[in-house]
């Protein structure tokens, strides 16, 4: 998008702050995994929550300055998605009391924070006409944040599952297996997180269609972003379908989650390289 102002100093500082806090949380979660120290776990959670607070402040600052929620550019979306992953993980950690998974989730968040840094830009005061529908903008993008947040956590679970199950109890896989919840637990929780996120992914597609019908006169235009949202939906639908009907569990299910998250990444980043109606999200 053209005509962005320079980014505010305050927002820049908060951007650096949450990036560093997520990096610190990553180190602390890994330390927890290695040492099994309760103190390391507490420190890790504190860094995560401080990072989330800093990121919430950054997003709130931008919202107040722009007069709308920060949902309308690639930079804003990337930041909100990192925040979404953090929120879903924080709630998961609170509910399950399993902190060790942070060693897999936080690196994902930190990596995305680097993308946020790379894409940083100032506020676009004027939204292009198609985006000037606050209700559907907030609902459509809000559901995407929760969907991608859930899929991000499921991806981290899938990676940890594959690492442990692939090592057959030997070497680093055995080391991790002794510190992480059981494979059965992780498989089960992966299903629950995907079930949560999938409803929101369905809402992303539906609310996007409703909004498109209002703005462009057609609920579905085979735009690359729309098609990749559908592909993401199909992959996770396949995962849920196979799990519930064929009891697909284990590595096969974990790999599906990895492929699904790859589709999420492409929907988010890759489609900006393809022409289409959603190209304003660059």
């Amino acid at each position: 998008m053209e005509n962005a102002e320079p980014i505010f100093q305050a927002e820049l500082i908060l951007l650096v702050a949450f990036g560093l806090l997520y990096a610190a949380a990553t180190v602390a979660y890994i330390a927890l995994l290695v040492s099994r120290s309760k103190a390391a776990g507490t420190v890790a959670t504190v860094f995560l929550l401080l990072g989330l607070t800093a990121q919430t402040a950054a997003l709130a600052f931008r919202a107040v300055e722009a007069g709308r929620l920060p949902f309308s550019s690639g930079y804003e979306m990337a930041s909100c998605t990192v925040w979404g992953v953090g929120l879903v993980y924080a709630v998961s950690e609170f509910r399950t009391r399993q902190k060790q998974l942070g060693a897999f989730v936080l690196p994902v968040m930190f990596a995305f924070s680097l993308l946020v840094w790379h894409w940083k830009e100032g506020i676009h005061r004027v939204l292009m006409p198609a985006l000037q529908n606050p209700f559907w903008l907030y609902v459509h993008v809000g559901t995407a944040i929760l969907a991608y947040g859930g899929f991000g956590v499921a991806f981290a679970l899938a990676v940890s599952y594959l690492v442990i199950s692939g090592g057959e109890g030997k070497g680093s896989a055995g080391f991790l297996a002794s510190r992480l919840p059981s494979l059965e637990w992780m498989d089960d929780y992966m299903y629950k997180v995907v079930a949560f996120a999938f409803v929101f992914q369905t809402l992303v597609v539906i609310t996007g269609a409703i909004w498109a019908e209002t703005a462009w006169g057609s609920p579905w235009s085979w735009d690359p972003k729309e098609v990749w949202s559908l592909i993401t939906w199909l992959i996770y639908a396949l995962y849920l379908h196979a799990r519930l009907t064929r009891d697909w569990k284990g590595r096969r299910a974990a790999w599906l989650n990895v492929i699904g998250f790859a589709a999420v990444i492409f929907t988010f980043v890759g489609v900006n390289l393809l022409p289409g109606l959603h190209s304003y999200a660059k």
Partner: protein
Amino acid sequence: MGAWNWFAAIRVAIVLFILWAALSALTTLIPQGQEQAYYVQKYGRTIGGAIMGLGFHHAYTSFPYVAVVALFLTSLFVCSVRRTKRAWRSTVKAKLDFQPGTIEKMRNRRVIVPGGRMTSQDVASQLRRLGFAVKAAGDSEGRQLFLARRGTIAPWGMAAVHFSLLIIFVGAFIGRTPWFGGFSSSLIIREGETAYDQPAHMAHSGADWKPRFDFGIRLVDFWIDRDQNGAIKDYTSRVEVVEGDKVVENKDIEVNKPLFYKGVKFYQSSYLTEGAKVEVTTPEGETQELLFPNSNNNSPDAPYVPDMMSWPQIALKDGTEMRFFAHGCVVNSEMDLLPGRRGESPPPGMKMRLYLVEQKKDATQWPQIGWVSADQPTDFQGLKFRVAGLVDATVLSVRRDPGMPVVWFGCALAVLGLLVGLYVRETTMMVCLSQKGNRSELLAGASAKGDSQAAEKHLNKLERAIAGGK
């Protein structure tokens, strides 16, 4: 029944999921709607030819894509029917039809020994307190068997999701085909003009077309709002809906704010610069207007270029007709970036070079009227010429889609079905109560669809409830 069972197979559904996703991914990488030469140049003769041969230049209506989606929908239909039957059997026709041996084989099971003797009413009551619907029966060895179920609505949720996807496709089909009165087109209306559903204003195919709606749309005004940096804030078409002689509705159509009238929706799609206006004042003081069409109206961002083949004319009082030719139009190149509204006429700095057409002479010999601007009239043979401005036309997308309510119903059903199917846990407990002297013993097994932890939780609750009940 062979084909039916084939489509019902989970393996087939899984393959179709993968095929549809993979084909969709591939087609997003291929630019759509180009000519053969484009694909050959970009991808080479072999791949370019394959793209054209498979129809992937119009991927989403190509045979392979439509075939995969059709197979998927067929499998979906078969699975929907099966799921509904299964949901019916499990909810309405569930029978208590198991032996204690069945419980022994369940993954989540335990033996619960209460403190004393329990009656079958005690067990049933505890199960009901945990939210289960209970069926009980005795067996030939004096044991009491209990089938306890909760969340039995969950399979209906999943059946609803399956059907909802079919409903969405049915709605889309209804909207896309003309059999139900659906159509999609574009309407181009010049400022001041009233457009109807006629070939002059809207695309129609076939010689014996019929109007799809019986009212007119008059474009009163069109403008673009820009911010102080020249970025477009919005496009607005101020329109009136005209029926006969009466204006029945007024509306400012903007992006995200379509006009909806008699089942037809009008969306702000684009705009064109149709032409440039020049006012001609005769010696008698009469003013006529010349419209010089734009030859470059394929894109709203294209600048106005006079159409070389269009010679607008005026008629004088003595019956003389005069034709004029425009060669060159200068519009302030930053005109479009000025803040506020574009559409106020005339734009500052606009001028056009006009000639008088004398058809018997070569064009190079046509008398030159000179540069005509908005500020000062230009005199020529007693006539005064003044630039009046650009003529914009709005482009509205027009659509009647009788299938949309069906699609939205399908979407709502999909979400509701998912909430029920995924978040309501269908749980079954099988309990066998046997009396051993002064004591009772319960063998309890639980299963929760897709969630063995939930099954364990219910067994824990049952155990605590039985212990607490004593």
